[in-house]
């Protein structure tokens, strides 16, 4: 064990050398995108996919080195904001990007444990999906555009996770949104798909707007703190007001180290009642546009705005509606962008800003409750969906809700753990769905599939493994990650909001049952049973090796990722130990402010059993319903009178009907109502379409003021002048 540890703690490339090469992780896919986009048509199909895959593959190799290097004991980055060294962080700073007065942003990357894990997920899953796409897109004319966008997306996503400041993160944030928009609309053929792209676009802009305002507020907040903070605030090792100011001058206030130092200084208060009073979260701001608000209050507002931003990108209430519609794009895109990587950006954002989030129990509670409600609503809606990709899309929304729950309750490591396992099994599910569509003449309606498992053995097997994983059956990774979340929530209590934890926990357990149910339904209806008579293709055909290969790898990964959840190191799960340094600042804030109370305890066998029972309950119910109950009723369209008699005579049927009446019908109705009212009517029609409609109408109406008559234009000018002069008269000539 020790040798193994030592092996991993000695990077083959010296960390300082590697830090200089971090640019290549982004640069390679960017180069790939350039080559594919500009020369794609001339290169030909095979070369384009080779270039694109090789670019991501190369990026994966460097990411592996980086992952290795962050474990190296020699690795540390110097902080410009305090005389400290941040251990286990690779950082490179290329100097000033731009400066506005004393607001400065540098161009720099950093890789710590959190980023390293995400790098592996993005490049790893990305690489597999590139390989898969080579066959999947083999019949499409726009393959070079497709690979160019896909490479560009990978580059942008890598920028997002490697950014060392909120500004560069925002560049990636916008970039992935743009690529997603381009890829959703890749097959623009009808108005519905065009609308899907537009909807994704509008909802994301709402989120981006909130993000920007939050960032602006944060800059103002740090500036206010800089002018107000006292020496007492910097009573931690290496801290001093001058160093902090010098750091702000050198790297700017939106660098993550700046925010980290800010959070640390805000909770440092060595001598309560000492000579110099320290600024605390309850201190009102003295100067500037935010005067008289408290630091804590503004931080809460900032975090809630970030939540709105994250809801847009990560498809949470109320901005989740775009994700199911985004399934209009090619399936590998759904797997990469709308399941594994981009949609987790919101989770990443909060984990990155963990030290700010824990300042505000209100914000944490809101994040947790929003996540829980999203998870439940999406899971319920997934019940009644018949489109294989729509089910998976709602399932993604639901799983993201689980991650938000974990983030909101401060169990950051579990959120990241679930993010990783989810990336594996959901990518596997999506690619499996793509394979099913590929082999069944692009059929997506699960009611018209059935029995596919017999012809597509590999697809069925991998899909099955992934289904078990997401369901949370014991030996698979999904079980561990989901259980880590629920267990973590169970142990946590938010200060002042004791009801949030239990509520979220119960909702989470309910979501687990629902997940098991609809995923089992999906699997059973697609792969088992008889082939539907309405099927488009009489026989399915298994996909080729380049499509099955990634499926197998992802299925294996969704099993072996469980290693992260085992208590191997210091009695902690591997993932928790690994991410320890990243969430250390949050722990420091929590221990100073007491915003979150954690009772540590190992996961007992009872907890495991409970979780397993929940999964089995849902899965069992689905198996019963779709394997036994519905098939026996198939074709029984008897006349009403006969049916009534039989219902009364055949006891079994009577029970069944009652069961259906009491349980299935209301649930289905609820699912339907949620879908129709909340999703389709309220959010889609009123909020999204309504905004677009109103602005376009107003624009179109204003347009007709533009009559083309020069005199009318002059008249408008004259009227404006009259108004202005009248104002002057009223203001200065009336006594």
């Amino acid at each position, binding site marked *: 064990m020790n040798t193994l540890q030592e092996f991993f703690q000695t990077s083959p490339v010296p960390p300082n050398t590697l830090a200089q090469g971090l640019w290549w992780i982004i640069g390679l896919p960017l180069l790939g995108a350039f080559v594919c986009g500009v020369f794609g048509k001339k290169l030909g199909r095979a070369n384009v996919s080779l270039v694109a895959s090789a670019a991501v593959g190369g990026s994966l190799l460097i990411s592996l080195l980086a992952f290795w290097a962050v474990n190296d004991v020699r690795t540390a980055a110097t902080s410009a904001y305090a005389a400290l060294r941040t251990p286990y962080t690779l950082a490179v700073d290329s100097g000033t990007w731009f400066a506005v007065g004393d607001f400065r942003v540098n161009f720099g990357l950093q890789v710590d444990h959190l980023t390293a894990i995400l790098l592996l997920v993005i490049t790893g899953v990305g690489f597999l999906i590139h390989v898969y796409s080579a066959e999947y897109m083999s019949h499409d004319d726009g393959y070079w555009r497709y690979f160019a966008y896909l490479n560009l997306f990978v580059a942008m996503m890598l920028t997002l996770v490697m950014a060392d400041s909120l500004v560069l993160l925002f560049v990636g944030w916008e970039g992935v949104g743009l690529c997603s928009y381009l890829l959703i609309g890749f097959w623009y053929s009808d108005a519905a798909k065009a609308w899907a792209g537009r909807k994704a676009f509008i909802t994301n802009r709402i989120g981006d707007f909130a993000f920007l305002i939050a960032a602006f507020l944060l800059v103002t907040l740090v500036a206010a703190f800089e002018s107000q903070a006292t020496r007492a605030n910097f009573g931690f090792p290496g801290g001093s007001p001058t160093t902090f100011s010098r750091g702000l001058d050198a790297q700017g206030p939106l660098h993550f180290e700046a925010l980290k130092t800010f959070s640390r200084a805000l909770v440092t208060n060595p001598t309560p009642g000492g000579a110099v009073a320290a600024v605390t979260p309850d201190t009102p701001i003295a100067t500037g546009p935010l005067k008289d608000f408290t630091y804590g209050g503004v931080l809460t507002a900032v975090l809630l705005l970030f939540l709105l931003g994250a809801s847009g990108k990560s498809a949470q209430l109320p901005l989740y509606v775009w994700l199911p519609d985004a399934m209009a794009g090619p399936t590998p895109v759904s797997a990469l962008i709308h399941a594994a990587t981009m949609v987790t950006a919101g989770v990443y954002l909060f984990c990155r800003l963990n030290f700010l989030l824990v300042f505000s129990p209100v914000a944490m509670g809101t994040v947790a409750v929003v996540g829980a409600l999203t998870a439940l609503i999406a899971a319920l809606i997934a019940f009644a969906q018949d489109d294989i990709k729509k089910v998976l899309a709602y399932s993604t929304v639901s799983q993201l809700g689980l991650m938000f729950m974990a983030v909101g309750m401060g169990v950051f490591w579990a959120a990241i753990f679930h993010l990783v396992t989810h990336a594996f099994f959901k990518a596997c599910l999506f690619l499996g769905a793509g394979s099913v569509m590929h082999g069944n003449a692009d059929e997506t309606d699960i009611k018209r599939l059935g029995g596919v498992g017999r012809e597509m053995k590999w697809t069925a097997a991998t899909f099955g493994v992934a289904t078990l994983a997401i369901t949370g059956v014991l030996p698979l990774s999904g079980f561990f990650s989901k259980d880590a979340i629920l267990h973590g929530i169970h142990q946590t209590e938010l200060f002042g909001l004791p009801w949030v934890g239990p509520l979220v926990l119960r909702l989470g357990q309910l979501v687990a049952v629902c997940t098991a149910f609809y995923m089992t339904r999906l699997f059973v209806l697609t792969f088992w049973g008889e082939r539907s008579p309405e099927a488009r293709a009489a026989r399915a055909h298994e996909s080729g090796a380049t499509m099955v290969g990634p499926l197998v790898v992802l299925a294996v990964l969704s099993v072996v990722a469980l290693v992260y959840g085992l208590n191997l190191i210091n009695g902690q799960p591997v993932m928790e130990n690994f991410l320890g340094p990243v969430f250390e600042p949050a722990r420091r804030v929590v221990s100073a402010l007491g915003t979150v109370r954690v009772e540590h305890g190992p996961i007992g066998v009872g907890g495991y059993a409970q979780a397993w029972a929940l999964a089995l309950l849902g899965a069992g119910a689905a198996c019963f319903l779709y394997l036994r109950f519905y098939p026996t009723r198939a074709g029984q369209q008897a006349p009403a009178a006969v049916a009534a008699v039989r219902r009364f005579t055949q006891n079994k049927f009577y029970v069944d009907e009652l069961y259906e009446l009491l349980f299935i019908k209301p649930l289905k109705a609820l699912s339907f109502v949620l879908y129709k009212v909340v999703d389709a009517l309220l959010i889609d029609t009123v909020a999204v379409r309504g905004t677009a409609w109103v602005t376009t109408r107003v624009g179109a109406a204003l347009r007709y003021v533009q*009559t083309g008559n020069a005199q009318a234009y002059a008249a408008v000018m*004259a009227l404006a002048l009259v108004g202005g002069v009248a104002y002057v008269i009223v203001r200065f000539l009336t006594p």
Partner: protein
Amino acid sequence: MVPTSNYLLLAAALFCMGMLGVLVRRNALVVFMCVELMLNASNLTFLAFARHRGDMTGHISAFFVIAVAAAEAAIGLAIVIAVFRSRGTLNVDDIRTMRH
């Protein structure tokens, strides 16, 4: 002595009459003449204030305005001719191919 404000009032009246002409006349050439009227009203204002203050700056300004008016007339009349050549009318209501 006539008070300065009377001169200024006359100028304001001429300025607004010019503006009225620009806004209501249909013939492009007449619209242009009304702009000239507005420039003259400004000149009168300059001269009235110059006399009021006993300062020659207003005179020089008026001199330059006359020169500018000449330049504007040259280019403006050329454009009016071009418009007439391209559509055979100088009616402002008809010069509106581009709109909305």
